[in-house]
């Protein structure tokens, strides 16, 4: 693998990680805690959406993020021919 393609592969990896981490922070620290008052108008099961994110929604999003990252990286590995 050439240096330029290694650098491009790593740059693409860091980019997708940054996107995933932004969503990771948004659903937990954001919707679950700091931004909860902003979405408090959306009712769910006798309480508000922020409570759902804090107790369940963030965990489900975390799972989706990891499997999305896995799918994306498997594709990227094949594209750069670094898969096994």
């Amino acid at each position, binding site marked *: 693998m050439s240096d330029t393609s*290694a650098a491009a592969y790593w740059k693409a990896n860091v980019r997708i990680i940054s996107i995933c981490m932004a969503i990771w922070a948004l659903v937990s620290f954001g919707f679950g805690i700091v931004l909860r008052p902003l979405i408090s108008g959306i009712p769910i*099961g*006798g309480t508000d959406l922020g*409570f759902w994110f804090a107790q*369940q929604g963030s965990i*489900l999003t975390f*799972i989706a993020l*990891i499997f999305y*990252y896995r799918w994306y990286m498997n594709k990227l590995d094949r594209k750069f021919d670094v898969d*096994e």
Partner: protein
Amino acid sequence: MDQFVLNLIFVGASFALYIGIAIWAKAGSTSDFYAASRGVNPVVNGAATAADWMSAASFISMAGLIAFVGYGNSTFLMGWTGGYVLLAMLLAPYLRKFGRFTVPDFIGDRFYSRTARLMAVVSLLVMSITYVIGQMTGAGVAFSRFLEVDNTTGLLIAAAVVFVYAVLGGMKGITYTQLAQYVVLIIAYTIPAVFISMQLTGNPLPQLGLWSDHVGSGEPLLKTLNEVLVELGFQDYTGHHGSTFNMVLFTLSLMIGTAGLPHVIIRFFTVPRVADARTSAGWALVFIALLYTVAPAVGAMARLNIITTIYPEGVQEQPISYDERPDWMRTWEETGLLAFEDKNNDGLIQYYNSENPPAFAAERGWEGNEMVTFNRDILVLANPEIAQLPGWVIGLIAAGGLAAALSTAAGLLLAISSAISHDLLKRTFTPNISEKSELLAARISMAFAIAFATWLGLNPPGFAAQVVALAFGLAASSLFPAIMMGIFSKTMNSTGAIVGMVVGLGSTLLYIFTYLGWFFIPDTNMLANTPDNWLFGISPLSFGAVGAVLNFIAAYITLKMTQEAPAEIQELVESIRVPKGAGAASDH
């Protein structure tokens, strides 16, 4: 059938299974012993990681932690799961590619420094040993409650079982027993929760029941719970009552700490390829979520159940009399974990918040809350009895609690023994020992680690309750930043990493000890542990994330003032960033 016999059958059968697996999965080489020869299926490793991670605290205590605080303790749910996103994206794939056996092994080689390796070993030993105490005491409690043996005998039986499969099988034996333990613990946790959810909401899935209507009131469950709590003078369940800043910081500390725990990280060394490490992290979180999404439902439902048991006619009416209390309360009163005191001698049980009594308390002659002790850990253990489930479910809970404690203990013991036999002996002090001697040394260290953990379990230090905070704080402020910089910075050098670890670890220890006492010795704290005294309002439990940030800053400042890492190290970093070749590199 007698309850004792049922418990014995369930616990005995699960132990026989673990020992059977140990005999089948005997380790023949150091690669077997440290990393199960890197041949573990990623889904199997996910389940083993889930059991490795979910401790006695997750199984027994978490639902109770949420039940008695409500929204504020969502921090545990987000913090203990969010770390897996960090593991999947920032650590696990690259550490698997690196292809070594332990966490200090990576830090020592990447930062080409014996000092860095030894610092990592010391952090690992402190956090893993403190963590293992809780597992051993948890196993002892489960034994004494369900099998009516005394605490010491219970602990010795538990230690003997772990000894058989951990010493014989190493990582290989531990992996497949953890898989079996996961199955036992998840079934044990789910069955009572399903029944309680059915009874309270008519929805068999607790995850959905939490948001459904309460059968008794016809209103949403959480709304009903909020109403009855407020009427009794408690804080509402779904409201936000503490400091927002601390809630964010505590959640972040738990996430970073989770990702930095060596006994979790080494599980990802057991899969064949880099892609499998990513897959495995995803499955681990799926298996963890099966319990972690049920726990908040169990918490809310159990809290409501207790109130409706005490106030069968509603909180505006009279509570039940002490003589008519249900059988499960009688059983748990015997353990001392539940206690009543009839303060106004009316023979009734008044349960309310005496600090903020409802208006009608005085006019009815209430003289204080009469449920004087309610240990949070009862919730999960007494669930089958509260929901009036058959005796075999109680037997299952006993086996499940023990599975949770033993699976985590085994993972920690492996992290401890491999740090001793591999990092201290093979890589530092006696580099010439043969593969066979190293395997023997690994087994002997494992045996010593078990004996030491058992001794600590029998004589738990007074600070046992504080140690989880310490373990997460150390992992967050020392190992996580060091590993991450080792991967994401090609130029980070040994001096930078060492200074970073010293600053991260030092500041975190200093902050914790300032408020909780030096080495947790009572009355040696320099400031009272109250929010007024905290620096910028940061709780000592939340400081791990700050320690991590200080670690990064100190490391980068040091890097600017010193030479960057040598060329061969930068090449090493480039190679661990690329998945190809991990399979070939598996026989280091």
